[in-house]
């Protein structure tokens, strides 16, 4: 039990420092959102002011929603992210189970091989990846992105999940074997439900870089039908760079889904990071 160590003035200083940095972190986002609801004059004359009835204006949103195919981009991002995460979790958990459960020749080597990708970024293989995608006719398809992101997410998923699967009790699995469960049933019905918290952590770690990636959509799938939200807003904002209302509205719309998801899941996310999965 720790007694209250800090004197009052020290606590105040700590809070002052944290509040100051919190302002630095949140202020740019806040500024963008409040100004997206104002008219052009007010944006320039009083950038710091909250929108008032006289300066309130939705013209930026009207421009954005009337121009870009944001619904399509959003759908593309969603498909790519969800399918990639599902594949990373399924394939990653299967491989992690094989590595942590069975002793076979080359087990350690296989683990090291799969862990290579944690440190070496997949981006460095882009030249040959593009070549391969051109050869197989996958350029400008969402499949290309899904394949790349699945490969990118697997190393960390296998690493984290196999650490967790080692903690699942052997007695439980052996009891299942005695009851005549096949190895597949043991994996799907006994082990998977027990590592669900670790799966959630992996899902979050996999999701953020996929959703935010600009490099692979730019190179592998830049066509209008396959643009992701990140690439779509990059190009859209680039075109409207002088229309401040539209730019601010587009930025606010791009922030919104991330902000909502984050506020809903921040507890799980932070618990996942601090639970020791990435010690």
């Amino acid at each position: 039990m720790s007694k209250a160590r800090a004197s009052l003035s020290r606590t105040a200083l700590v809070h002052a420092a944290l509040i100051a940095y919190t302002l630095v972190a949140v202020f740019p986002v806040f500024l963008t959102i409040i100004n997206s609801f104002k008219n052009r004059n007010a944006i320039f004359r009083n950038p710091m002011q909250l929108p008032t009835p006289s300066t309130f204006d939705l013209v930026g949103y009207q421009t954005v929603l009337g121009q870009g195919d944001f619904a399509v981009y959003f759908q593309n991002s969603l498909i790519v992210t969800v399918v990639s995460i599902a594949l990373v979790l399924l394939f990653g958990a299967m491989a992690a189970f094989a590595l942590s459960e069975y002793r076979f020749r080359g087990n350690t080597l296989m683990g090291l091989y799969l862990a290579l990708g944690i440190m070496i970024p997949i981006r460095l293989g882009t030249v040959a990846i593009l070549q391969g995608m051109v050869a197989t006719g996958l350029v400008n398809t969402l499949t290309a992105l899904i394949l790349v992101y699945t490969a990118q997410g697997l190393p960390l998923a296998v690493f984290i999940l196999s650490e967790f699967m080692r903690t699942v009790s052997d007695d439980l699995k052996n009891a299942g074997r005695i009851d005549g469960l096949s190895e597949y049933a043991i994996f799907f019905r006994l082990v998977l439900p027990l590592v669900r918290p670790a799966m959630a952590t992996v899902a979050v770690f996999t999701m953020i870089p996929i959703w935010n990636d600009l490099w692979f959509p730019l190179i592998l799938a830049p066509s209008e039908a396959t643009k992701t939200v990140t690439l779509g807003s990059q190009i859209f904002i680039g075109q409207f760079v002088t229309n401040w209302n539209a730019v601010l509205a587009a930025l606010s719309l791009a922030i919104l889904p991330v902000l909502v998801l984050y506020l809903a899941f921040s507890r799980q996310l932070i618990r996942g990071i601090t639970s020791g999965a990435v010690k």
Partner: protein
Amino acid sequence: MTDATLSQGEMQAASRPRRWHIAVFLLPALVVYSAVMILPLFETLRLSFYNTVDGQSAFVGLANFKTLFGDARWAADFWNALKNNFIFFVIHMLVQNPIGVALAALLSIPKLRGAAFYRTAIFLPTLLSFVIVGFIWKLILSPIWGVSPYLLDLVGLKSLFAPWLGKPNSALIAVSLISVWQYVGIPMMLIYAALLNIPEEVIEAAECDGVTGWAQFFKIKLPLILPAIGIISILTFVGNFNAFDLVYTVQGALAGPDGSTDILGTLLYRTFFGFQLQLGDRSMGATIATVMFLIILAGVSLYLFVIQRRIRRYQF
């Protein structure tokens, strides 16, 4: 325990000579990972030794590297990008990681009110995409919009304002600091987790000996979180020497003004994919990717084989 699993494995091996399920479990991950990641990586490394000679792809040995390091047309760009990338990394190490450690130290003060709120708010920028971060800061630092001069005026420093992103001297520092702003949440969280793992008894023992406050942090906690600081350093290194998105969003593929924010990622993009009048060059792209690979490999090896082994770990 180990005996049990061993004999069980042997029993299985005896009753079923081939344990097909192991292959079934491993295969999907192995196929996707090998086909989309490892093979292209090696193919890229291989391509760096080839170039088009008389319209035909031919083995040229180290000629591409010689061109990259020495040819007048390439070398200036390459050394400039490498130097900038190094500065980019140094700024992250000097600004991002100390701020991250400091914030984590403040957040881990026991019974701090509102810690969850601060944590959530400070981690927010890390989740935003580079596109959002890049454009927000482009707007805020823009001399057209009076936000930065206005804020500087509040603290009486208005005269310091300059269009930082547009000046060759300050653009790289400005872009690096934007990246620091975005990523400070990651070192903060990892260090925070490490600090929470320090057992209460250690801290109590320190207090009994009269070691508190700053002394406690530097003499007791800092040595205990050194392994975590090692991890964030290598993560920063790999992330920085592979960075591209933020510079591309803020300064475009040419990484202006005048190439002053060009890093290896943007150089790779322009070289391999082409930009405006410049045609894409596959072999030179592969060569730059190979150099980046070697730099990252050197950094990771240094960490794994030298630094990680020297860091003293404490077990509780």
